[in-house]
């Protein structure tokens, strides 16, 4: 059994996270820039991901830049499926913070083992006209055993004549194909191990983004982006499960529950997403560089989220730098998220229209603390290593917390 972790849709990230004109600008003047990175991501007792990222940027002409990205991931480990363990194992889930705890016995359906590799490639071409107009065309493809993704995007940016303000607009379309490694997708709400095997799940994602970047003063750059997107098609996770539970003592929930059946989950076939993102870079009086950003997100699954990200880079002689990093994140639960389907409700009204016990749709809070240390070789490149610790806490899900350690080593080399 595998996990939704692997839906690392390279394509949908391309437009929204590559920061196209900015990252490409870093190679201005140099003819080539190559950046290679190794990343190790390890959750406490759960999944491990090792990732290789390679980026190549080159000026093919005075007005054209091409960027090629390559990503290779290997993933392994186990992850919560959303199901609760069989009869006999239960926990008291009475406190809102979910401090009851639960330990899954081996061989349970509540954790799923998996292993997979992924390969992703994306190509971007940026053309500049009259110095102030930039148009970017991008395409990407990502392939793994149970997931394929193909995306196209285009972005247009224009500077004002004083080069103080840049307006940009972009659109992206991504086509994904989702299936289990054993083939097809499960019948929604069929019992685990039973039911029909339906065809592959297909979905389309449309994303648009409008942004304004502005020079606020000699030491500050600010940006605000408005994004909106639509997912349409098969949005369910074909591996995720949800259990039906019955209270051991109908009059006293603190006595715990028993799991009576486990089903495949079912999600809506469309999702409308929006966000407002504000970002700023600022050189302080001490010559340190601060990056601060905030995103407010909301969608029609009733997920509302806040993300705050802060970095402060201390720069030293010889090009050395130390950059602590802090990130805070929270989200409300999706409106069809539920820990389990209660027997009482089930007997009255049957299955709800949609239900998922996927912890990633649960009410969540997360903090990341990290440090990035490196050395810049002016005109030559940059070497850096970072270590981060991420911790997620869940309101309702089976496992209260998830901790992950991230280590990433990267080296960038410039060529004339």
């Amino acid at each position, binding site marked *: 059994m595998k996990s939704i972790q692997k839906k690392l849709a390279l394509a949908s990230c391309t437009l929204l996270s590559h920061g196209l004109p900015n990252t490409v600008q870093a190679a201005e*003047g140099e003819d080539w820039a190559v950046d290679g990175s190794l990343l190790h991501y390890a959750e406490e007792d759960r999944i491990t991901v090792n990732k290789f990222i390679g980026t190549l940027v080159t000026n093919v002409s*005075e007005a054209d830049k091409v960027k090629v990205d390559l990503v290779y991931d290997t993933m392994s480990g186990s992850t919560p499926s959303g199901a609760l363990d069989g009869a006999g194992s239960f926990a008291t889930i009475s406190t809102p913070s979910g401090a009851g705890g639960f330990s899954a016995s081996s061989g349970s359906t509540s954790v799923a083992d998996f292993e997979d590799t992924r390969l992703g490639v994306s190509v971007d071409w940026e053309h500049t006209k009259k*110095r102030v107009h930039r148009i970017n065309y991008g395409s990407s493809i990502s392939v793994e055993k149970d997931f394929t993704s193909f995306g196209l995007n285009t972005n247009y940016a224009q500077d004002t*004549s*004083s*080069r103080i303000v840049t307006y940009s607009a972009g659109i992206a379309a991504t086509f994904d194909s989702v299936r289990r490694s054993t083939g097809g997708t499960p019948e929604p709400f069929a019992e685990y191990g039973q039911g029909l095997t339906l065809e592959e799940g297909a979905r389309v994602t449309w994303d648009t983004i409008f942004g304004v970047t502005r020079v606020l003063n000699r030491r500050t750059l600010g940006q605000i982006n408005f994004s909106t997107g639509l997912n349409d098609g098969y949005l369910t996770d074909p591996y995720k499960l949800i259990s039906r539970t019955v209270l051991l003592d109908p009059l006293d929930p603190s006595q715990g529950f028993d799991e009576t059946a486990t089903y495949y989950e079912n999600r809506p076939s469309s999702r409308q997403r929006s966000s407002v993102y504000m970002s700023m870079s600022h050189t302080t009086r001490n010559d340190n560089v601060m990056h601060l950003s905030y995103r407010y997100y909301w969608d029609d699954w009733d997920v509302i989220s806040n993300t705050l990200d802060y970095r402060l880079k201390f720069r030293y002689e010889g090009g050395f730098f130390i950059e602590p990093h802090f990130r805070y994140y929270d989200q409300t639960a999706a409106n069809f998220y539920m820990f389990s389907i209660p027997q009482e409700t089930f007997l009255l009204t049957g299955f709800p229209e949609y239900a998922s016990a996927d912890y990633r749709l649960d009410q969540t809070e997360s903090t990341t603390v990290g440090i990035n240390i490196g050395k810049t070789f002016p005109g030559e490149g940059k070497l850096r290593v970072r270590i981060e610790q991420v911790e997620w806490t869940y309101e309702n899900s089976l496992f209260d917390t998830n901790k992950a350690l991230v280590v990433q080593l990267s080296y960038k080399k410039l060529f004339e």
Partner: protein
Amino acid sequence: MSVSFKLVLPALFSVFLIYSGHVKAEKAPGFTLAGDNGKISLQKYRGKVVYLDFWASWCVPCRKSFPWMNEMQAKYKSKGLVVLGINLDESKSDAKNFLKQIPGNFTMAYDPNGVTPGKYKVEVMPTSYLIDRRGNLVHTHRGFKKSKADKMEAEIQALLNKK
């Protein structure tokens, strides 16, 4: 009647010259700045062709423009070309560090307060101006592109050949 006739013709001719584009009667704004050895003022170069370049250590295209400017200065010095670079770094040490890596074998002036670029209405970095022997601002080049180098060299030659 003959008096007014004597005035009308030159007047008309001047107007013709000004608006024909053959002679841009715009004088290059004057300045006096600190140089490596004493003061530098534009007045001093009347009679020479001046290639005036506004640059800074952080300006990436300047890494490509400097070798070309060195080449031009060496090639046309005897014919009367003066390549004059005006550095706009707020800190002189930044300029020095740049010059250590990429030498500028031409006249250097320093304007850390950014007084001169305003006079020349500089819009991007770098911007260069070609000033003829009479002190007129003839050509403006925004940015630096190697592909334009030949055209700029032809412009320099044309101005050097003009009396």
